[in-house]
């Protein structure tokens, strides 16, 4: 377990090596990146086998860093962060596999990619609020370059919007944390210390602080109406980056809400709980409705990510142990499923057909030309709908159970969201892969005349391996979610969350 911090260091080392290796050849850079990503994933899995679930954070490293300000280099792990660490490793490995075809400046691509991954590992391992913030910000710059240099539609605009929104969110968080630190008289930046200090603020002060910190993190999580950067940014990003961004980086925001914001001021949370829950369910339904109208397949997936993150935020807002454990499970599940969806749309389809418009794809009838991609997309789609048998179902079920106990109205609206998700996913499957929605396509007809000559390259081995990894994970967790719930549930019994998880009252 002590070796977990090596995930950060090894990934950073891998980034530098990939940069150097890229000078020699693209292949060298790719293999270095794959070995780094897979290696760190195996580290997280190894830690998972040794992990003893329990309340509270289990310290891995605790050294003084900036003594004058009481900041410590404190890395720790609990069941929730372990779940997300495993997700990061998986998403990183799959992301590398699906970026195997990057030819331009490959070394630099993987250097940025791995730096981003290292930042994410760091966030999940941090137990000191400033260290958390530092890793959180480290993740911002590589995102910009990955999108701006290797992206597609509207990439410069998408990259800038994503970077600025993330930074603005983190600026709000910094303002909130500093306020608590200075006005509350904290002696350090550990989570417990800050909670103590926050209790010294006046009631209006606590409310504003909570708003700053929570909504700052919620921007990155894609809470309605702070979500507008997400579809644009994820669509503009190259495949491996969108998998990582929608799959893991959005979870950084939700994790920040959970780890930092929620325990900080129970009083502030009690004030904001209802608006946050309503914003979350609005996001679920609104983003789903937009996805239903979208003409670009990748935008459909982008908005579906916002909709799914709405479930996560709903679970957090409901603030009882069941709902929050569902939210963490949904973070994991959606990380895998979003990865699959972006992988198919970006790598398997767009890189071959060079179009993502549903109107164009409909004429190509991809289920005949790319049967593997179609199967993977159907699996990913039904998983995304929350179909039982895949990881989305236990997550959504748990969130609904928990939310029902906190506010039945919210659960009812969320259930509508499930229906909308089914509608837009099925529409995407139909139009994107099965040809026109107006006629059935017999399985053996002679091929559409417009595309009789369309030849699409075969699916490569990295794509297959990546897809199988992700599908296997979602099925495994769908059928045996307590593999993760057994880590998450004990972690929620930490005294830090008692005030919040028992109804949100101080």
């Amino acid at each position, binding site marked *: 377990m002590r070796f977990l911090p090596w995930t950060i260091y090894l990934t950073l080392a891998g980034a530098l090596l990939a940069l150097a290796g890229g000078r020699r050849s693209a292949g060298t850079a790719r293999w270095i990146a794959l070995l780094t990503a897979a290696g760190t994933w195996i580290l997280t899995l190894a830690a998972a086998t040794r992990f003893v679930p329990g309340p509270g954070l289990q310290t891995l490293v605790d050294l003084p860093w900036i003594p004058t300000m009481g900041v410590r280099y404190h890395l720790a792990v609990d069941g929730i962060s372990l779940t997300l660490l495993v997700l990061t490793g998986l998403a990183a490995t799959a992301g590398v596999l699906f970026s195997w075809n990057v030819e331009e400046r490959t070394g630099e691509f993987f250097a940025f990619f791995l730096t981003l991954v290292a930042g994410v590992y760091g966030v999940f391992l941090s137990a000191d609020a400033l260290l958390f913030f530092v890793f959180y910000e480290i993740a911002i710059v590589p995102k910009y370059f990955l999108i701006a240099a290797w992206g597609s539609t509207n990439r410069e605009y998408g990259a800038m919007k994503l970077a600025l929104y993330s930074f603005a969110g983190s*600026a709000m968080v910094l303002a909130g944390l500093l306020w608590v630190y200075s006005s509350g008289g904290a002696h350090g930046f550990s989570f417990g210390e800050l909670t103590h200090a926050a209790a010294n603020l006046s009631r209006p002060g606590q409310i504003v602080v909570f708003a700053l910190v929570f909504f700052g993190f919620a921007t990155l999580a894609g809470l309605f109406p702070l979500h507008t950067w997400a579809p644009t940014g994820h669509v503009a990003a190259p495949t491996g980056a969108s998998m990582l961004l929608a799959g893991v980086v959005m979870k950084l925001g939700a994790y920040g809400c959970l780890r930092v914001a929620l325990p900080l001021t129970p009083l502030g949370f009690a004030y904001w709980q209802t608006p946050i829950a309503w914003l979350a369910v609005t996001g679920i339904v609104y983003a789903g409705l937009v996805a239903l109208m979208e003409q670009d397949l990748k935008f459909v997936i982008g908005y579906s990510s916002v909709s799914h993150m709405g479930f996560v935020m709903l679970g957090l807002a409901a603030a009882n142990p069941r709902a929050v454990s569902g939210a963490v499970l949904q973070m994991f599940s959606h990380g895998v499923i979003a990865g699959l969806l972006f992988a198919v749309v970006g790598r398997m389809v767009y890189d071959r057909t060079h179009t993502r418009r549903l109107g164009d794809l409909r004429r190509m009838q991809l289920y005949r030309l790319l049967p593997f991609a179609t199967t993977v997309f159907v699996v990913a789609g039904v998983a995304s709908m929350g179909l039982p048998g895949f990881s989305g179902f236990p997550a959504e079920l748990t969130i609904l159970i928990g939310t029902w106990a906190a506010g039945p109205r919210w659960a009812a609206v969320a259930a509508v969201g499930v229906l909308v998700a089914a509608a837009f996913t099925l529409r995407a499957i139909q139009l994107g892969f099965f040809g026109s929605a107006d006629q059935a396509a017999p399985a053996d007809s002679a091929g559409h005349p417009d595309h009789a000559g369309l030849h699409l390259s075969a699916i490569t081995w990295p794509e297959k391996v990546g897809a199988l990894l992700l599908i296997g994970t979602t099925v495994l967790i769908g059928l045996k979610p307590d593999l993760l719930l057994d880590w998450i549930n004990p972690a929620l019994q930490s005294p830090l969350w008692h005030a919040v998880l028992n109804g949100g009252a101080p």
Partner: protein
Amino acid sequence: MTPDYAGLFSALLPEASLVLGALLVLGLDLTLYRRHSPAERLSLALWVGMLALVTAGFQIWRAEPGPVFGGELMLDHLATATRLGVVALTLLTFGITQDSPAPRQSAEYVAILLLAASGLLLMAAAQQLLLVFLALELASLSLYVLAGFDRTRPESAEAGLKYFLFGGMAAAFLLFGFSLVYGATGSVELPEIARQIAAQGSNPLLVVGLMMILVAFGFKVAAAPFHLWAPDVYQGAPAPSAALIASASKLAGFTLFVRLLWPGFSPAAGSVTWLNHGPGWFRAVAVLAGASLVLGNVAALAQTSLRRLLAYSAIAHAGALLLGVLAAGRAGPGPLFYYAFTYGLATVGAFGVIAVMETAGRCERITDLAGLHRRSPLLAGCLAVFILSLAGIPPLAGFFGKFAVFSAALQAGGIRGPAGGLAVLAIALSAVALYYYLIVLKQALVAGPAAGARPIRVPRVTTLALLTAAGLIVWFGVNPSALLSLF
């Protein structure tokens, strides 16, 4: 009380080394190196100068701390740190001078650089008003000349003239302000002045004097609304001059400022919250800081010239540094020094990159950076480090500088105080700043090279200087205690 000339002499050894170095450079150039090529003469002058700087640095390190010559100079931690910082930044400036477009009179250039450095060293330690003025003028006059040194470009002459005119006026303000303060308190020694103000309370004479001093310093550090010289000077001056003006001069200037205000005029600081309407300079400095932050960041958005963008960003940083000055009352000068020094490192580095690019072609507009990642990965990587540090992205030093300053500001009176409110404003504006910094990096790291752009070869010494600057930024970022614990 016999004046302690021996102490004074040993305290001033660094300055003396630098002056001697300057004379040596001039002498050697006039005599031995007359017939060498300009590039060789520059190179040799620089080596001698660097030797002088290293000697000065060593002497600063070995100097005895404490008041000198009856309190005229104060070699406390702040002074020592600033002096070492100035030496380091000047060394880096020398490093990037090596292969800039060679000025025609290279030895004179180097000599004046050394004289400027010595003035800056003196500024860091001065604790008596006349000495302050002397040091300030020595440094400023050298810097005016350095700004206008490049006779091949009319912008340089414009820069020098503007700097001189503004600077001269500021010097007049400063002197007048000092004389008023002397009139009000009867002393030129800062500790004595502080006692007098505490005893007397405030009177109009003092207030006017203080305001004039503030104006002068506002000019010196390019705070709005006294910033008008900065864009033109940054744009026109030769790259090494601009580097020195932007880095070492700022560092020394702020050190001087903070020493004046806090130990010196602190009883006249006035209240630190909004509610109490007592008179004092605190509010005035806060206004300067706020104006600089807003104007600097907003104006930088519109720039298409790289140097002018750096100028406006310098104004914005000056605003943040003024915030550090305000916070120094509670938290000491540590955060301010850290921010100013690491800011200096980043700026020297940025101008170093500009210098290399100007030698290889032109670097006027931001778009001239296009494709830098292909033309020279080293320059692109170093530029990324410098720009990101300016933007305040961890784990680079720029972030911790901002963090230390902002948290100190918030502690100085809470969120309701002007300092706290400014800190929040600065945090918000940093998102704006990220935008224009990313625009620069987009050209350097994302955009493809322009047609006909050739690879850039970076000379060894400059490489070393750039890597040292970048390395120090990373090191101080990962390990901020290295500097913060000095205070």
